[in-house]
């Protein structure tokens, strides 16, 4: 019997145009919580999919209990005792908790194949009790909170008798107390001999739980360490590949007069009492946990959704924004979080994407003038250094970083004063990241007021002039430059008790 329950050697996975994993290794002991860390795009997600049989590796070997194994689909991996809990909860909102737990491995009568509901309810209840939860197993999944749904996902993993559970960013949307519940559950599973691969951005997750940590960077294996033998700084260097400060060549951008003022903005169920101001040339970082309401505030400012209370003032004038077009006309632009779904039309060329927000500028009384359009699109694409052959290259064929540059170029077509960037470097490789940082700095230098929503702490700290931290729909803290620290942000983002509120 091998020392390791799961061992992966020299795993390589290529997709058209990219190598997602390049000869990576991984070793997992029985009853161990093993953190897997790395930046976005480091290859963690692909790695999980290889383990769970969603993707077959192009090269390399997988050993389960020392025996070589190859999964051709997720069902085989599940049968072998491997379960994954994904970052985006994948469940059936219309079905009951019990059905969600047992979907795919229902209990059926051995002869008639009739579903044994009573048995399933009983077992669901027992597993939930074991997890310290009192959720009614007959409840509809869609009525549960995100944290509760996470627990159901874990219950599902337990119900398959999984020996290896992979948790992909399970705490991303949880508050401190909810995270603590999850830690407790993970520990008790570990004590019962289950091995857990824990993927997280958060250092405190790793220190709190894991005994060992493996780092990937840019599809490569960097190393594995015992948690107590590696320092925080070493870990950051391992993940990022250089000191954090190097990534943000800070340019001086003079800060001018106030351009945007938000007063007591509120939307039922999403956010409340949002007040802040923004000045020309200033980069305001907006951070907090996923689900804290950051995107919702930005979408309300941009007119995607309506707010219920409060007011927004741009250049001293109170705004009445009913739809994005109004916001853009008045001078607010928004770079949405999901560039593939919200930012770009992937089936279109670069040029058409860039001109879409301001078509009327390239047209005469509604008639398109394609020659003008192509020229201006080209200028803007070159301005943000899009790497492509022609402006007719499809947006869908570009890398993440280049797609993001095209999305930024779209903002430059309108005469804006305020630019809201929602997770501008999400899913972008390191090289393109610093290019995007430079573009953001340039925009600030040109006098735009910039709101940058980000979950990545080094990025927020490195880029912002001030940082607003949100938790559960409220701004809990407004940090000035000299107060910036990971600890301060974390405390404001996660603490259960309301933090100090300061409106800037």
């Amino acid at each position, binding site marked *: 019997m091998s020392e390791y329950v799961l061992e992966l050697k020299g795993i390589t996975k290529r997709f058209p145009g990219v190598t997602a994993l390049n000869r990576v290794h991984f070793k997992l002991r029985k009853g161990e919580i093993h953190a897997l860390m790395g930046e976005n795009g480091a290859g963690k997600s692909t790695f999980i999919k290889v383990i769970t049989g969603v993707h077959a590796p192009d090269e390399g070997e997988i050993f389960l209990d020392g025996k070589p194994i190859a999964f051709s689909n997720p069902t085989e991996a599940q049968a072998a005792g491997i379960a994954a809990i994904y970052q985006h909860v994948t469940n059936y909102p219309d079905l009951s908790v019990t059905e969600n737990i047992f979907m795919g491995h229902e209990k059926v009568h051995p002869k008639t194949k009739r579903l044994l509901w009573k048995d399933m309810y009983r077992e669901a209840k027992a597993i939930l009790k074991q997890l310290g939860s009192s959720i009614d197993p007959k409840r509809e999944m869609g009525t549960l909170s995100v944290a509760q749904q996470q627990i159901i996902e874990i219950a599902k993993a337990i119900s398959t008798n999984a020996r290896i559970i992979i948790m992909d960013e399970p705490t991303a949307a949880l508050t401190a107390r909810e995270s603590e519940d999850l830690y407790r559950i993970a520990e008790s599973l570990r004590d019962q001999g289950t091995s857990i691969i824990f993927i997280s951005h958060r250092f405190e997750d790793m220190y709190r739980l894991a005994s060992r940590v493996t780092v990937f960077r840019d599809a490569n294996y960097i190393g594995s360490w015992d948690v107590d033998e590696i320092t925080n700084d070493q870990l950051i260097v391992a993940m990022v590949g250089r000191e954090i400060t190097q990534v943000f060549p800070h340019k001086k951008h003079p800060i001018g007069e106030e351009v945007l003022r938000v007063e007591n903005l509120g939307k039922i169920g999403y956010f409340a009492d949002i007040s802040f101001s923004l000045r020309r040339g200033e980069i305001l970082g907006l951070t907090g946990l996923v689900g804290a309401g950051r995107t919702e505030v930005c979408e309300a400012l941009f007119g995607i959704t309506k707010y219920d209370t409060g007011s927004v003032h741009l250049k001293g004038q109170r705004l009445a924004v009913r739809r994005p077009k109004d916001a853009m006309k008045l001078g607010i632009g928004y770079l949405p979080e999901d560039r593939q779904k919200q930012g770009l039309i992937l*089936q279109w060329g670069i040029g058409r994407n860039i001109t879409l927000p301001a078509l009327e500028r390239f047209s005469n009384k509604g008639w398109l003038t394609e020659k003008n359009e192509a020229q201006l699109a080209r200028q803007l694409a070159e301005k943000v250094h899009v790497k492509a052959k022609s402006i007719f290259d499809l947006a869908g064929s570009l890398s993440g970083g280049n797609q993001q540059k095209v999305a930024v170029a779209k903002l430059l077509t309108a005469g804006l004063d305020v630019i809201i960037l929602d997770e501008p470097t999400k899913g972008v490789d390191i090289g393109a990241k610093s290019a995007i940082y430079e573009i953001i700095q340039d925009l600030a230098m040109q*006098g735009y007021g910039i709101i940058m929503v980000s979950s990545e702490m080094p990025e927020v700290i490195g880029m912002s002039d001030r940082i607003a931290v949100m938790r559960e729909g409220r701004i809990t803290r407004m940090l000035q430059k000299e107060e910036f620290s990971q600890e301060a942000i974390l405390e404001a983002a996660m603490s259960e008790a309301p933090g100090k509120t300061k409106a800037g």
Partner: protein
Amino acid sequence: MEPKTIQPYTQRTLEADRPFSAKQFFLQWEWLLAFILIGVIALNTSLSPYFLNISSLRDATMVFLDKAFIVFPMALIMIMRDIDISVGSTVALSSVVMAVAYNSLGVPMGAAVVICLIVGALCGLMNGLLIVKFKELSAVIITLATMILYRGIAYIILEDQASGSFPEWFGFFGWGYVYGIPFILILFILAALLFGLLLHKTTFGRHIYAIGHNDVASRFSGVNVDRTKVIVFTLAGLMAAVTAIFLASRMGSTRPNIANMYELDVIAMAALGGISTAGGKGRLIGTVIAVFIVGYLQYGLGLINIPSQTLLIVVGALLLFAVIVPKLNIPRFKK
């Protein structure tokens, strides 16, 4: 202030002229359609020696062009990844209102024609508003409901009677010629040009394509998705009313069950014309060719005395052909 880049990446220039590719040019769906059209005409000619003479070709168009007016807005709707199955009912309702206005309410025929157009546009407007206000419901289900509703209202108004005896001049729509060209053909060409320009040469048309590919990204890009949808659905209602006028004129009367299942013919023509049901793709020129393919095919089958109901099968099969062929990878015709 011009942005200064401290460390410029390999400064590139992007090409801004669309490269011309002969291969792509000839692998267009429209060429396939043109061949099919030639095939249909050849077939008809072999069936009836009289087919291939100008007056026969010309008169055939008068029979099938009436529903073709709806194909254009339907193409726009399908490009936006929506569908409207209420158009046949809109034709019935608007023509019934027109006939009743003239025959029972004593409205002059000219005004009745205008009323017909207004009723059609209102039907489309209602579809559009409901679709926009209730985004969680699909256009399928909303236009399914209004399809029943509009025809139901037509039945309430006219029960199962026919209403006709229009003034003589009204027959001009269906049977008139201008310099030897059927009036309906002239109007059809005019409508094709107008819709072609609208779709391909204006910002409005660009927005329609954007919505069809990705309505969320369009909204984030400042496209007024709701307004665009309402306008296009209203246009569909309006063109249905145009069809109603030509149909009532040609038949000399109307009744609540006219234009039954027109939506199928119209959707089939649009799909055959290369309008993808997945949204975002297709050009108007294709639908024009498709109108003639379906029209002449039906006409030709009529020549050899195939009963009209059998034509249902042909149209259904054409619709399936149009949606399935592009999914097969063999001859990669670009839609």
